[in-house]
């Protein structure tokens, strides 16, 4: 019986599943949402704010008992088992996500993967001596080589599924692109995966209100004929040295502005200093949000590359698209899921400055092409906003996962599977029929369509 076999596999597998015996009188609510919130200095915080605002707008907290918690400290641990479901925002750093990750093992979890890789995060867990880190590393190592996706193989942080442990333990996973789904399923993931688009963070008029500032910024650079902006966190994966080289190849008409959060350990000036692009490159670290938007508004073109890719969806790309700025991206991972007409892609892997320069040159020389791509990008983001696609995706993921964890048949089966494991029944044993009658009986209680009709008639007659 598949259901029992699956359960026995889950329970016997590395990192045993905790079988929940039902909530006691300490039950607090249905859903707890754990993730960074503003003013935490991480993009996940603005993301979470947008998601929570959307769910509030949609009235979800009126339909299910819903709490949000931030910051998450070890003292909060006792809260989580009191909820039927936790929504846990997981990013690739221990600074913001350590306790959230730990909490995801304390109750039935719907985990949201902001990075698929979680490589830095798991290393951080191990450095902290957390057993969950070793469990995650062990499971990732075991699954290394399980996928033959060339895009995954080309990106080292993705080759080992560092997220596999928490994903297997979870009852549902939210990713932000089809690439995320393909990635997880490529490693044999059986946890339900929900693809929910990244929320539209900025207000519809955000770029209108920063237009004057955008003009000022551009004037400060002596109004270069062609302004390229590389937005977002300054890190090695952005390949800013290649972007700077490409900028240099464009000639003196072009200016490259690198704008975003400075990331500790990455020497951006050192990286671009070796390119010889000199005054035609400027670095603007840790600017206020309004300036960040203004830089995007001022840009003729944005560049948002990744190598290696970690499976994340770029918030900077989303903002650039909303601003109607044509953006050059790497043809890898999540960037492949963005509609073709809304971005322009260059080859995956380490970017070739000449190819990038050629692409940028084409955009510089063809204002119509820039306008077409920019308009398509802005329309795409507007469509996501108007349809409230993120909120609808979250609602569906929460509702379906909540139904799954509340399913009394599943609870009964979990208890049964745990008992089978306790008495030494293996997957082979289940295959030979041990315990399978029980699962078959549970399945036979699935109501057919006639039950709803009979209940309706009964209620009417009584």
């Amino acid at each position: 019986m598949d259901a029992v076999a699956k359960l026995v596999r889950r329970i016997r597998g590395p990192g045993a599943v905790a079988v929940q015996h039902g909530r006691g009188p300490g039950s607090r609510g249905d859903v707890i949402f754990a993730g960074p919130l503003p003013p935490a200095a991480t993009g996940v915080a603005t993301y979470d704010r947008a998601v929570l605002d959307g769910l509030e707008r949609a009235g979800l907290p009126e339909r299910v008992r819903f709490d949000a918690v931030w910051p998450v400290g070890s003292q909060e641990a006792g809260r989580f088992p009191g909820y039927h479901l936790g929504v846990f925002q997981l990013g690739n750093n221990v600074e913001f996500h350590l306790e959230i990750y730990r909490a995801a093992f304390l109750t039935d979890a719907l985990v949201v993967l902001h990075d698929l890789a979680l490589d830095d995060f798991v290393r951080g867990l191990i450095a902290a001596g957390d057993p969950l880190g070793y469990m995650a590393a062990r499971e990732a190592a075991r699954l290394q080589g399980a996928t033959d996706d060339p895009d995954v193989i080309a990106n080292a942080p993705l080759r080992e599924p560092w997220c596999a442990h928490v994903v297997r333990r979870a009852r549902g996973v939210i990713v932000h692109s089809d690439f995320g789904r393909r990635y997880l399923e490529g490693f044999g993931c059986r946890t339900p995966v929900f693809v929910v688009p990244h929320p539209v963070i900025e207000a519809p008029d955000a770029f209108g209100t920063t237009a004057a500032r955008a003009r000022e910024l551009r004037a400060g650079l002596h109004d270069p004929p062609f302004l390229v902006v590389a937005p977002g966190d300054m890190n090695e994966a952005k390949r800013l040295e290649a972007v700077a080289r490409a900028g240099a190849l464009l000639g003196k008409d072009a200016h490259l502005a690198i704008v975003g959060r400075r990331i500790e350990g990455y020497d951006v000036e050192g990286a671009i200093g070796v390119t010889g692009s000199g005054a035609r490159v400027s670095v603007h670290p840790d600017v206020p949000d309004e300036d960040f938007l203004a830089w995007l508004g001022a840009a003729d073109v944005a560049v948002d590359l990744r190598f290696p890719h970690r499976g994340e969806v770029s918030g900077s790309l989303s903002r650039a698209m909303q601003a109607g700025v044509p953006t050059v991206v790497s043809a890898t991972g999540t960037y492949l899921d963005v509609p073709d007409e809304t971005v322009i892609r260059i080859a995956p892997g380490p970017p070739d400055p000449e190819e990038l320069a050629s692409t940028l040159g084409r955009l510089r020389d063809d204002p119509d092409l820039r306008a077409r791509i920019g308009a398509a990008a802005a329309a795409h983001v507007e469509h996501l906003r108007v349809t409230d696609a993120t909120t609808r995706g979250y609602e569906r993921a929460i509702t379906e996962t909540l139904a799954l964890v509340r399913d009394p048949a599943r609870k009964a089966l979990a208890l049964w599977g745990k008992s089978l494991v306790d008495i030494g029944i293996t997957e082979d044993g289940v295959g030979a029929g041990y315990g399978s009658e029980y699962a078959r009986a549970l399945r036979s209680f699935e109501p057919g369509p006639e039950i709803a009709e009979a209940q309706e008639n009964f209620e009417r007659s009584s």
Partner: protein
Amino acid sequence: MRVAVLHPQTAFVRGGAETHAEALIRALRAAGHEADLVQIAGKWYPPSQLAHQMAVWRSFDITESNGLVVDAVIGLKFPAYLAQHERKIVWLIHQHRTAYELWDHPVYADLKRQDDGAKVRDMVWEADRVALGEAKRVFTNAKNVRDRLWSSLRIPAEPLYHPSHVAEELLDGPSGPLGDFLLFPSRMEGLKRQSLAIEAMRHVSTGARLVLVGRGPDESQLREQVERLGVGERVAFEIGVTDQRLLQLYREALGVYFGPFDEDYGYVTIEGFAASRPVVTLTDSGGPLEFVRDDETGLVRPPEPKAIAEAFDRLWNDRAGAERMGAAGHDLVRVEVPRWPDIVARLLG
């Protein structure tokens, strides 16, 4: 014939269902069959436990025991009758009521208030549809239970009454003169509504007293109510009485009161009539109304304290009428309620 009587055990709880199962086994054995009680203990909360119990019974193999073929099984109560057997007879005491007629009840609804109650309700309906539908024959212990089954799942069934051993002893023994108290033997819990009878005692204007017999989770609450209403001298409790004491109480009572909410069948009515006592019941009491006819075999009143009190006073003031109704009830039970040899023959026939 080797017959297994299937019954779900709720440890430390004893009521009519247990009496019924034991009486059936005695009757089967008396008729020459090899009969045994087969029980699996369980509880019905939280709802996932109910689903667990259902699956346990449904997957339970009762085709043989110790190498001996089990020729037939008789299932009495949910979820025991979910067990599969090629010759399964169901004698339904009641369905899982909070999934059916009590689903929406303002006081007695329980499953509906649980997080996963609706899902379990659907499972119960589906399981009943299959398990009762596959039974060779379906009997119910009362017309009321038959009607509920039909109105919910459209499964036909034959009502088959039966006497309790107390009723049999009363039927076959002498009956004494009418006393001065109304007897109300029942498990002390919400659906039996002892509190309504206690409330009624405030309005009784004659010397009629009320004797509550039984035990249950509401006992202390009922005692507090008696205290609070100042009716301690008119309401007595007898907890955990022997059968002999119960027989004596029936034989010495003025009448019997039995006013539960929508009872399935209810031995109390049959026992009261067997003792030639008139029975006071209520318009929403369910099973008792199959026997109590107003002013013929007893009194039927709305579920209101003053109306109940008026019935008690009426019996006190009209002893001849009470005797007449008790005698008519006695005759009715003799005609309507078959004795155990006939019941066994019908069940296995």
